[in-house]
């Protein structure tokens, strides 16, 4: 095994603006899809028509309105066209460079060795027109680094393959690696999981309650009021349907040498690719109503995904929207190679914890093995969190006044922002200190053995491209096919 390549970690900021000397955009750089101005501008145009139309209806001057709308459309279209014309992207050394802006030229370089994920999203309008959006997640950025809106579907797929190949440290012309489907979510299970979700049930109960009230006051004048007060229930049901069913429709999780691939979505579709070693933590969750079916869901922390709004973060951080316990356990073992978080021996919280967690304290437990730290908690909403030692960012001990009185302290294992948080709550002080010290040491050792950032580069020097960790039969053919050219 060759040593991990050195990176200058000092400049974690990937965007390096160069106001002093902006190189002219190289000739081979490409433009976005020509329909981009239309797709980006339609919202603006709709707003103009909406506002102007209201005004026109009120004053009755349709002719002037038509002219205004036309003027808006022309101006918007010209601005969009100019922006499209001056936006070009391409590879510059080992970074992706995006130049944009007409008056204020802006040149962004996205360092690919820090690439955390590549997503291809296709909003409904984009699907109709055959274009898609490509997003790069780079750690450190608050939000997605430079979404490329919009690219032709073929271009997006080709660019993704090239990005992944370069990030992996292999030849850029390597075609997309083959994949093996790990899990597909059946539609009936997805529907049932939606129906059994808390928001859906709450919405139904709410509407049913109002319906009963409606029966009692049938003959009075408040019918309209009652009907309109059902609206929150309807909204809750709609939101639950959309969040679980609409977004995770036709959910496919596949595994390839490039990491995990996720495809999902009913109207807007998403294709996510998370390279190996980018998973910062996994949580297995079981809502109360799913327990009868034995279903769980898996969420992951990936650096870059969590920095967005919580809604977006929930959308991008789903590893399995619903699966049986066994299936989820299998996936869990694959994303955290070398360990089985579900069979890690756990130690329970001490008795005084019952004062702070009257119901859940017996369930409160944590454990460690060679690779991960595991935290379990929750009575109604069960939760199991696993964070690889190598991904520990820092370790904190926190002790509040009540905990101090009871002789307890909590240890936080910090990870990148996202839905997964490992908090070893309510341990004895001496134990808490020991956990913190040992976790820091385990993290230090694990970092040295972690998957290198250029996850394929090590195969270039090695004749046998089969690592021990990858049990799939495919192997990484991408690496072997181009080895001769190097």
């Amino acid at each position, binding site marked *: 095994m060759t040593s*991990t390549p050195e*990176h*200058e*970690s*000092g400049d*974690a900021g990937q965007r390096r603006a160069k106001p002093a000397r902006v190189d002219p955009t190289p000739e081979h750089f490409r433009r976005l899809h020509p329909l981009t101005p239309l797709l980006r501008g339609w919202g603006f145009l709709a707003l103009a028509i909406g506002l102007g139309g209201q005004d026109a209806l009120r004053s009755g001057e349709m002719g002037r309105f038509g002219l205004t709308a036309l003027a808006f459309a022309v101006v918007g279209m010209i601005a969009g066209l100019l922006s499209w014309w001056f936006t070009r992207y391409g590879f510059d050394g080992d970074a992706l460079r995006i130049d944009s802006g007409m008056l204020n030229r802006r040149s962004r370089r996205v360092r690919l*060795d*820090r690439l*955390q994920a590549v997503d291809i999203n296709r909003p409904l309008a984009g699907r109709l027109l055959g274009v898609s959006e490509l997003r790069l997640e780079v*750690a*450190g950025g608050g939000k997605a680094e430079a979404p490329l809106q919009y690219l032709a579907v073929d271009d997006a797929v080709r660019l993704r393959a090239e990005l992944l190949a370069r990030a992996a440290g292999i030849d850029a012309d390597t075609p997309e690696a083959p994949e093996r489907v790990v899990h597909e979510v059946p539609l009936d299970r997805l529907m049932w999981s939606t129906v059994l979700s808390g928001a859906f049930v709450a919405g139904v109960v709410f509407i049913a309650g109002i319906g009963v009230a409606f029966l009692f006051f049938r003959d009075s004048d408040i019918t309209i009021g009652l009907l309109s007060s059902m609206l929150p229930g309807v909204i809750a049901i709609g939101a639950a349907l959309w969040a679980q069913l609409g977004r995770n429709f036709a959910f496919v999780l596949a595994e390839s040498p490039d990491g995990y691939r996720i495809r999902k979505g009913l109207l807007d579709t998403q294709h996510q690719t998370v390279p190996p*070693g*980018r998973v*910062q933590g996994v949580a297995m969750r079981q809502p109360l109503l799913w327990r009868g079916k034995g279903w769980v869901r898996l969420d992951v922390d990936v*650096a870059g995904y969590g920095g967005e709004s919580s809604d977006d973060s929930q959308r991008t951080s789903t590893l399995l929207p619903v699966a049986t316990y066994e299936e989820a356990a299998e996936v869990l073992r694959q994303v955290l190679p070398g360990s089985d978080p579900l069979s890690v021996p756990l130690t329970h919280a001490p008795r005084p914890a019952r004062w702070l967690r009257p119901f859940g304290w017996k369930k409160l437990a944590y454990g460690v093995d060679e690779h991960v730290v595991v935290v379990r908690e929750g009575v109604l909403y069960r939760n199991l969190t696993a964070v690889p030692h*190598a*991904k*520990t*960012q*820092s*370790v*904190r*001990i*926190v*002790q*509040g*006044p009540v905990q*101090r009185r009871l*002789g307890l*302290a909590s240890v*936080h294992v*910090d*990870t*990148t*922002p996202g839905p997964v*948080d490992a908090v070893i709550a309510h341990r*004895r*002080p*001496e134990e*808490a*200190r020991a956990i*913190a*010290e040992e*976790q*820091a040491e385990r*993290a*230090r050792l694990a*970092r*040295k053995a*972690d998957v*290198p*950032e250029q996850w394929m580069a090590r195969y270039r020097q090695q004749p046998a491209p089969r690592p021990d960790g990858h049990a799939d039969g495919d192997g990484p053919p991408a690496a072997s096919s181009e080895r001769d050219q190097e």
Partner: protein
Amino acid sequence: MEEDQDQLFAPPGEAWQQVSRKLVALRRLVLVITVALAGGIAGVALGLIFGLPAVLIVVGVALIALLWGLWLIPRNWRAWGYAERLDDLLVTRGVMYRRLTVVPYGRMQFVDVASGPLERRYGLATVQLHTASPATDAKIPGLPAAEAARLRDRLSALGEAQAAGL
């Protein structure tokens, strides 16, 4: 029990490195200014509406807050401490909510040194370590400027030497 508690936040070596005593003076100054401003505004506003009794109540509340703060600040100062180890930095703080943060040098993304106008008058600076997790809570206020610069340089050198990918 009390011994356990002390063990929990015990220094890794001989003793915690403490922050400058001038931090107490700085914080007291800030407290006095804040209380005077807030009390003054509240006193005038309430005095105009409700008359003299309201002013007296405001003055009383402000005085209590001031005394309590003046007493609390040295305690809080004493709770701050940091220790540089071979592979990580330890920072402890807090009286009511006590915290101890262990930050591996290899996990550091960048180091911030900040010094506001008041801090500069006292020759102090604040050093803050950032990792990829926003929850990491490694801030050391009240360092003498020279110590802050030394710490920053040492941390960045160590961070570079031990850097790991995410």
